[in-house]
């Protein structure tokens, strides 16, 4: 759409600006404050320069949780995106079943995150949970509070359960914007199922898929509540992702300096990836 140049439009943005800036600037400045200084309480601060940053960037603990985080995010995107596309492609297009499917599929998205964690905790309990009991009675040794592999599997499956529907909904939206004529034309040309997917459906889903992956990257990189309630970061540290580690350092040990430095490093990483995504997305839209 052609947009008119009008700097008065700033007035329309002012309310948003005030509210978001209030919530973003002041806390961010607090974090920056702590990241470069040492405090022993009483509002007395000593300049520390980049000490905390060096400490965080060299610490094996940070590297370990960063690697866990990257593996986790990679795994869930690799599972959720193809699964989401497959479900969206096979969903009914018209009639009563569309509403039924949409309502049921959107349900996990609206359950509070700690309830998701608690629900999966109950579901996976080895002796009394539906999943844990079934797996164990099938002869699979499964105990997510003791075995790192079981804990990882449960966390990943929980996230797939929780968020695949978001990708389904977005892809479904992209698919339903394809006019019937396209399919008819493809049918007349004798196009294969794969050709229809590759040249009609996938291009139409490209924009929503970019958004879906962007959202999933951001949200899974910040994941805290669900694994915290499910496993508490354990057994040991095996499911301690970045946010869990950060809260442990900041609120558990009250090491504010290193926590603040880690926060900034963490935030910058998310920002960098999202900026790259955003630039690609905007370039595609302009074409």
């Amino acid at each position: 759409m052609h947009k008119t140049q009008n700097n008065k439009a700033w007035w329309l943005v002012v309310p948003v600006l005030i509210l978001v800036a209030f919530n973003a600037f002041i806390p961010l400045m607090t974090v920056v404050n702590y990241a470069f200084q040492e405090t022993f309480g009483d509002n007395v601060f000593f300049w520390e320069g980049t000490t905390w940053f060096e400490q965080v960037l060299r610490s094996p603990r940070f590297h370990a949780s960063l690697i866990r985080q990257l593996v986790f995010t990679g795994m869930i995107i690799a599972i959720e995106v193809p699964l989401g596309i497959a479900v969206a492609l096979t969903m009914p297009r018209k009639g009563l079943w569309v509403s039924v499917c949409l309502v049921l599929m959107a349900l996990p998205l609206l359950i509070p995150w700690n309830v998701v964690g608690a629900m999966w905790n109950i579901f996976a309990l080895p002796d009394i949970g539906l999943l844990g009991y079934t797996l164990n009675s099938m002869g699979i040794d499964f105990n997510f509070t003791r075995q790192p592999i079981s804990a990882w599997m449960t966390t990943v499956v929980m996230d797939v359960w929780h968020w695949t529907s978001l990708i389904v909904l977005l892809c479904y939206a992209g698919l339903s914007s394809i006019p019937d004529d396209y399919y008819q034309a493809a049918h007349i040309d004798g196009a294969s199922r794969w050709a229809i997917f590759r040249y009609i459906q996938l291009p139409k889903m490209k924009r929503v898929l970019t958004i879906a992956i962007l959202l999933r990257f951001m949200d899974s990189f910040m994941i805290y509540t669900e694994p915290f309630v499910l496993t508490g970061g354990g057994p040991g540290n095996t499911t301690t992702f970045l946010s869990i580690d950060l809260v442990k350092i900041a609120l558990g040990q009250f090491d504010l300096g290193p926590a603040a430095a880690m926060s900034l490093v963490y935030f910058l990483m998310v920002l960098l990836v999202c900026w790259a995504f955003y630039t690609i997305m905007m370039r595609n839209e302009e074409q």
Partner: protein
Amino acid sequence: MTRSTKWLVPTLYILFLMLPIYGLVSMSFKTTTEILGGFSFFPQEFTLANYKVIFTDPTWYNGYINSIIYVVINTLLSVTVALPAAYAFSRYRFLGDKHLFFWLLTNRMAPPAVFALPFFQLYSAINLFDTHLAVALAHCLFNIPLAVWILEGFMSGVPKELDETAFLDGYSFSRFFIRIFIPTIAAGIGVTMFFCFMYSWVELLLAKTLTSVDAKPIAATMTRTASSSGYELGLLAAAGSLTIIPGAIVIYFVRNYIAKGFALGRV
């Protein structure tokens, strides 16, 4: 895939989604002895005792009321301020518009864990700690950017001729906006409210950090009960099952908007 087996994928997927929910709901109807006694697919001694505790104990049911209050305040606030801003982004080019839009989005990307402690200090300093307003305002951090993003997508789908015709007909900006423009993008507003409701309802970390007694959300009540009074699984399951209901109601109301709306907006 042939037509006859096509229904299988969504059906299996929905079954996978429903199983953990069934596990939770069926556990909420069991007695503690039955739960700890071993696994049973159906409740053997069906009981409503867990629900009775929640509906009669104020610390429990106030949790629900608190959560709903701050979620509603946040949704209304976010959509109200996001509407004019999204209009500006979709219709005009102005100084720094692209940078501003990306800056807004960066706040959606900020991990809440980063902001938990500073938020606590900030809202304590302005005497809003433990109020519904504090949580509603804090959730604006990620909900306003999201609302602007979704609404901007919907508004860009409305042809500009609509605005121009209305202004030629002598409509003032505010009258045009309220009388014509808002009804036109009603579906978009519905979808946006759904997303704001969703993210505010499910968030726990900030809501828990900013409250202690008076505005404590149900999610926080649950975590504390789970740790303080041993492990009352039945009660926890009942409380969890009840948190699914508001979400289910909201989805039911916007189901047609979602189907129609998703394609229009960018999200």
